[in-house]
């Protein structure tokens, strides 16, 4: 049981998919300009990775090794399309918010990475935990980056102005504070991720390679 909990907890800290394995960087910089988008993306990946890991794990003994990557890709794509169609039919509003993320989920390397590295060699329950753990680890970083980019870039959180009104010059803006539009551009996501990696490795020297 102790080992099961590590499957969830490790990816949150010392084996984080983004800061340690450096996977899923592309989506981390594409959608973190807003906190809300980060949260939606995290939940979507949580679902796809959790279910996908179980499906691949159940199929692990019958998947021919020569075409395993293609099979994994089909599993992800099928899952994502099923979710997309069901949402479009029964929760149309929600599906419009999510449509942007569909393509990004299919190409997310964390998902392929976990299928390949874990689900192909472990049972369904362990794979499920591993999927949830990695998705949470991914989500935590996404939400941290989204929080700082939206706060410093637009002065809002989840769309609510928290620092005052930049045009009417109220709140912080009254004393000369300006939004940093630079934070909204993708390169700043990498810099924020870089800072997180730096802090993490300063606190835990064992993570430093060489």
């Amino acid at each position: 049981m102790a080992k099961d909990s590590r499957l969830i907890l490790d990816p949150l800290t010392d084996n984080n998919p983004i800061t340690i394995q450096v996977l899923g960087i592309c989506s981390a910089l594409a959608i973190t300009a807003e906190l809300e988008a980060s949260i939606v993306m995290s939940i979507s990946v949580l679902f796809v990775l959790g279910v996908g890991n179980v499906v691949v794990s159940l199929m692990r003994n019958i998947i021919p090794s020569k075409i395993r990557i293609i099979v994994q890709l089909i599993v992800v794509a099928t899952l994502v399309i099923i979710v997309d169609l069901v949402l479009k039919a029964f929760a149309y509003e929600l599906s419009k918010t999510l449509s942007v993320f569909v393509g990004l989920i299919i190409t997310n390397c964390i998902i392929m990475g976990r299928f390949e590295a874990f689900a192909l060699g472990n049972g369904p329950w362990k794979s499920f935990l591993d999927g949830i753990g990695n998705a949470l680890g991914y989500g935590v970083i996404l939400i941290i980056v989204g929080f700082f980019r939206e706060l410093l870039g637009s002065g809002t959180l989840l769309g609510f102005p928290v620092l005052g009104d930049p045009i009417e010059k109220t709140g912080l803006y009254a004393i000369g504070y300006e939004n940093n539009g630079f934070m909204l551009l993708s390169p700043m996501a990498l810099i924020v991720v870089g800072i997180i990696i730096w802090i993490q490795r300063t606190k835990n020297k064992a993570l430093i390679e060489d």
Partner: protein
Amino acid sequence: MAVNTDKNSYTVIFAVGMVIVVGVILAGLFSYTKPMITQNEEIEKQQNILYAMGVNENDESSAVFVSPDVAPDEFEKFVKEQIVITVDASGKVVKTQTREEFMAENNKEPYLIDIKKQKSNAKSGENRQLPLFVGEREGKTYYVAPIYGKGLWDAIWGYIALDENMVVQGAYFDHKGETPGLGANIKQRYFMDDFYGEHLLSEAGVFKGITVAKGNADPKNEDKTDNEVDAIAGATITGDGVTAMIKQDLKLYKPYFDTLKTN
């Protein structure tokens, strides 16, 4: 397991089997959900048109449509006429039809006209159908025109409500896949509301459109006759797309608005 998963024959059989299974699942699900999805999309168009003419449930800061359950009724109540203007490739008006005339000919509601398809028709030199929805709310007449163009990643579109003088009375924009936090903000209230009251024509009555302008000297948008609204930082290409679709598509309606004045 007894099966040798490395054998070529097994690999081929597995691949074929998987394609069939996945194909059946997806095709089945698709045909099952299609009628519901089509209906959702039709209702969304009605909600968009109603939104542009001010029939919505906006609260202080966010854009809220009328609920999907009441949208068809509200659409019937507020939209008095759906005109279809057919223009040739040079933008010259060929004919103007009422809803009944259009439906007798094409067997579908004018609001379901596929703007994207009409636009590519025009590019290949064919005639283009331009729907225009005439709505009435609180004694005022609104002319709602659809627009369609491309942003940074994918399609963007919208509905613009105008009065007789082509002054904007409401705007709704949407997009397929613009960047969240940047281009995707064209569907935020602060951007859409900026269009209210903007003139599409110059003072001399020439069509100028509305430019989504960076470095705008008027960020609070108090000058409504400058044909400019303030751009979104970090969304230059999406903003340019909005400018372009307003200029290209609404220009085609100008002859119709000219006839309104002479009558």
